[in-house]
């Protein structure tokens, strides 16, 4: 097993480099990725346009003709070498969810897949304090993990053309929340009023990489 502190820098085309850790969903790797991304962002290197944390990599986008790649590369190596690269304390969010029915049309399928009752699926889904590993796919969409392996149903073969905003879904060992109405293939088990993407806000994405999220079953969307 690769050590979570192992990393390497690779080119991703001529306008991005990635600092990559071993490719797995691992809270220790994610902590390093989130902390490193924050430090690189704060350093405001000349030419850098975007710093994007994902499960096991920090990708740094830059303007190729306005960037001294050799010195950026060295600076990134130095950042990655820094010891004790731990993230700042993260938020903990409780997300109220209405499970099943029209709000979670795939809850029955997930129950059949896992061989347990829908109540058991809800209990398993609400029993974990999840980590937001990354925000991607859609503006403000949190990739969270990891869910109980018994309910880890793969994505639908054919994605839905329209998934309502607030839908809570499962894709393998990940769970996520649609921040806007959009096409998508995750198995929908419930819906929440929390966490819409709003570009007018100072912090347009409700979820940030590193957040901790716990789901709570409620009777009505929007109920506290």
């Amino acid at each position: 097993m690769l050590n979570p502190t192992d990393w390497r820098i690779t080119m991703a085309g001529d306008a991005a480099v990635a600092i990559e850790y071993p490719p797995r969903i691992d809270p220790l790797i994610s902590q390093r990725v989130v902390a490193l991304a924050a430090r690189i962002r704060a350093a405001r290197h000349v030419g850098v346009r975007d710093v994007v944390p994902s499960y096991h990599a920090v990708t740094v986008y830059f303007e190729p003709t306005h960037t001294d790649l050799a010195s950026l590369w060295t600076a990134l190596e130095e950042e990655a070498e820094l010891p004790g690269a731990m993230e700042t304390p993260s938020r903990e969010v409780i997300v109220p969810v209405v499970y099943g029915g029209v709000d979670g049309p795939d809850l029955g399928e997930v129950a059949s897949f896992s061989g347990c009752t829908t109540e058991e699926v809800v209990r398993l889904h609400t029993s974990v304090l999840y980590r937001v590993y990354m925000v991607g796919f859609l503006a403000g969409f949190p990739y969270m993990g990891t869910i109980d392996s018994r309910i880890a149903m793969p994505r639908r073969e054919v994605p839905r053309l329209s998934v309502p905003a607030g839908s809570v879904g499962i894709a393998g060992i990940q769970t996520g929340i649609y921040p806007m109405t959009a096409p998508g293939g995750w198995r929908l088990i419930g819906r929440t009023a929390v966490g819409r993407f709003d570009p007018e806000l100072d912090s347009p994405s409700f979820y940030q990489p590193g957040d901790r999220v716990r789901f709570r079953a409620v009777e009505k969307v929007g109920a506290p």
Partner: protein
Amino acid sequence: MTTVQDRGRWGHQNLGVPVAGAMDECSHRLANRLVGNSSELATLEVTLVGPSLEFLAETTCAVAGAGFELWLDGVQVQTGRAFCVPPGGGLRFGRRRAGARAYLAVSGGIDVPPVLGSRSTDLASQLGGLGGRSLRAGDRLVVGRPTGRPAISGAVELPFRLPVGGAHVRVMNGPDRERMTPEALASFTQGRFTIDPDSNRMGYRLRGELLALADSSPLLSGPTPVGTVQVPPSGTPIVLMADRQTTGGYVRIATVISADLPVAGQLGPGDWLGFELCEHREAVAALIGLEQRLMHVS
């Protein structure tokens, strides 16, 4: 289709916000230069079929990129040079001869409210531009206060060759190329692909030889720079373009170099596309060359 575009919504991909922006940033910048705008101001990106526009006030305009016939009150005007539209003037895009996307710059820029620092229309997220959508008949657009005088009085050439029917673009190796079979890697650079009709600003779906994966075990989702060529398990590659999602989980076989993105942006459905491998050094040299030609057009 016509949308408002600038150089893209950078700095928010960590929150999943796509970059969007002009598909051919080079022509967008050239059109802005022709009317004396900074390259940051928004233009109209005209795709395949152009609009008819009525100007309510005197406006300096220029069109760069795809070779459209342009008619100002029934008189033909050239692309690649600034011209003045009188109050009440009508500008109509006619037949398209080459390329897929033209950029109409107006002195002062198209002034829609910036969203997260950009006026670009992101159709998938319905962000920016005019209500996050393409223009419809009857829409009204506001023009910003002109910031400069037209910098160039004559006609200029594009700093790259406008594709007719298809083009080769240069790519750098992608991070997952070892997941492809050797035969697939060979087909990728030796074959020609055709851009599928259901391609759009998010990506070009390519028809041609299927590219087989040697390793189809799941990949963790990771960032997807513009120009990334993805290969899903079906074997039909997709070139990610301006409105691409910020992350994806398909095999990344290659990345189109920045210098050839404008050419790629000038391709449309039915055009062919071929790929040539190149090294990083060549990619940077090509981009510097393109920038120099763009700066010295006159």
